[in-house]
């Protein structure tokens, strides 16, 4: 037996096992990502291309209907991950506490995670309908009882930041179950002795939360924030189902703008948008990741 052959037999963890996913991942993810840098600098019909340099990027920054994507994507990412931290932690504390119906409520909170995003989007669109929606009808009825004349806000049609915030709110409603589960695991890993020691020293509920719970669930917070940002910055389907980026383009995010450019046949511009989204995501996830790693090492 030759030496080379012997060596091959010796290692039981053959690289051949990596080959299937290696090939699929390379062809369908790595190669498109690499060629996207080139095609983002072209005018492109999928069959033919013409090199235009940074023209697409310039257009992206200059045109108001495209540049709004930066602001909206950032707002959407920050609002969704911030609210998921707040509500996820609050629900996790509630659902690991002395509640009798813990198991039932955990299921209730988690179920929306498994449901179709588009279906949820359509459902909330009719709940938020300015005239017929149940939310505004409730507000109007409530206003009448306290003598306040109101029509209720135009959740998805108002020409300001409200439509984007309404969609972000639905995103939180749908996704808070994951944050809750991650926080529940984080809470379970805090030793009970810490709380007992604090109780002996006469600390109250707020001291418990501020000095024990909050610092010790930091790994869970890191997971929630990073996962929410990864999802939130790329979010497309919920916005598409609820507002189509409208009214006008006021609630458009980078991902929905890219889809619109793709639909219109501007493939080079859509690819430039993809590259921009890539750097945008890295520019936000990078510092967030670094921040949580640094803090963890200190602790």
């Amino acid at each position: 037996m030759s030496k080379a052959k012997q060596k091959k037999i010796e290692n039981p963890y053959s690289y051949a096992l990596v080959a299937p996913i290696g090939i699929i991942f390379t062809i369908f993810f790595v190669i498109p990502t690499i060629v996207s840098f080139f095609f983002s600098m072209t005018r492109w019909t999928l069959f033919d291309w013409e090199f235009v340099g940074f023209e697409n990027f310039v257009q992206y920054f200059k045109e108001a209907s495209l540049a709004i994507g930066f602001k909206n994507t950032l707002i959407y990412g920050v609002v969704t991950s911030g609210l998921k931290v707040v509500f996820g932690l609050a629900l996790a504390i509630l659902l690991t506490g002395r509640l009798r119906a813990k198991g039932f409520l955990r299921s209730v909170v988690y179920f929306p995670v498994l449901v179709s995003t588009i279906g949820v989007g359509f459902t909330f669109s009719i709940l938020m309908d300015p005239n017929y929606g149940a939310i505004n009808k409730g507000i109007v009825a409530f206003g009448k009882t306290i003598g306040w004349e109101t029509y209720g806000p135009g959740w998805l049609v108002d020409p300001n930041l409200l439509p984007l915030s309404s969609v972000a709110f639905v995103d939180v409603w749908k996704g808070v179950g994951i944050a809750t589960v991650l926080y529940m695991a984080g809470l379970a890993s805090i030793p009970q002795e810490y709380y007992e020691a604090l109780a002996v020293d006469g600390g109250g509920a707020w001291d418990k939360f501020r000095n024990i719970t909050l610092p010790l669930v930091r790994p869970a917070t890191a997971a929630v924030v990073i996962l929410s940002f990864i999802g939130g910055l790329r979010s497309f389907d919920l916005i598409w189902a609820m507002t189509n980026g409208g009214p006008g383009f006021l609630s458009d995010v980078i991902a929905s703008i890219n889809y619109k450019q793709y639909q219109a046949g501007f493939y080079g511009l859509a690819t430039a948008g993809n590259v921009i989204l890539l750097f945008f995501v890295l520019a936000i996830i990078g510092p967030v990741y670094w921040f949580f790693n640094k803090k963890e090492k200190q602790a």
Partner: protein
Amino acid sequence: MKKFLRKYGLDFVAIPVGLFVFAAPFILIFLTATKNSKESYQFNFQLPEKFLLWENIKTVLQTSDGVVIRAFINSTILTVVSVTLVVIVSSMAAFVFARRPGKLTTFANIMVLAGLVVPPAVVPTIWVLQRLHLFKTMPGLIFIEVAYSAAFSILIYKGFIASIPREIDEAAAMDGCTGFALYRRIIFPLLMPVNVTIIVTTSVAIFNDFTNPLYFLPGNDNATVQLTLFYFQSAYLTQYNLLFTDILLITIPPLIVFIIFNRKIVSGLTAGSVKG
């Protein structure tokens, strides 16, 4: 009374609020799906004059030569084949990454991170699919779903396999059981708990996927269930009862998964994932 309140008081607040916030939208879906088209346009929580759920389901299933039935078949094929492939190819790779440190494994770790964070380049992917004659085909979309799900599942599998004692596979390797046989006979049977987690999370994600079928498998014949919702929205602008019947129908598979795996999803996702 005081004692009773202290014991159950929180529940009396939490249960109604929880149901109001999280269950009300589902009640609205169900109620709207039971109404006629005129009533459904009221968007309210009133009971229907006549319970028309079965009639609505029949109408939805017959619409456009049964596009919803075709979509259910397409989505089932897509989900089952993709998830099967994901489970096999990512656990195989994760096994090697967990056991064989080296340059390739370091590179793979970077790729896994990239796969989690980097947004896919859509139009260039279509360009690649066209070159391979896979654009607008089910196999093409299956490969896409496998590629996009790989990073997350490799991460989960790797963490789990690292906790399996090395001695087990060293003993097997000693007896000449190596490579695929070692993975297939020794490691794979030990992966069942984490397989459940991957199968549940990945199948729900792929069944509910809207964006990738929209880009990579357009066309009415190829529709997957999520795309049929837009069909009802545009073709029957005023027929909210049918739209919500469709939403109700496509919520049933996740509901079944939820009922069966409820406890396991939560415990599987959290086992060892965020230890402080």
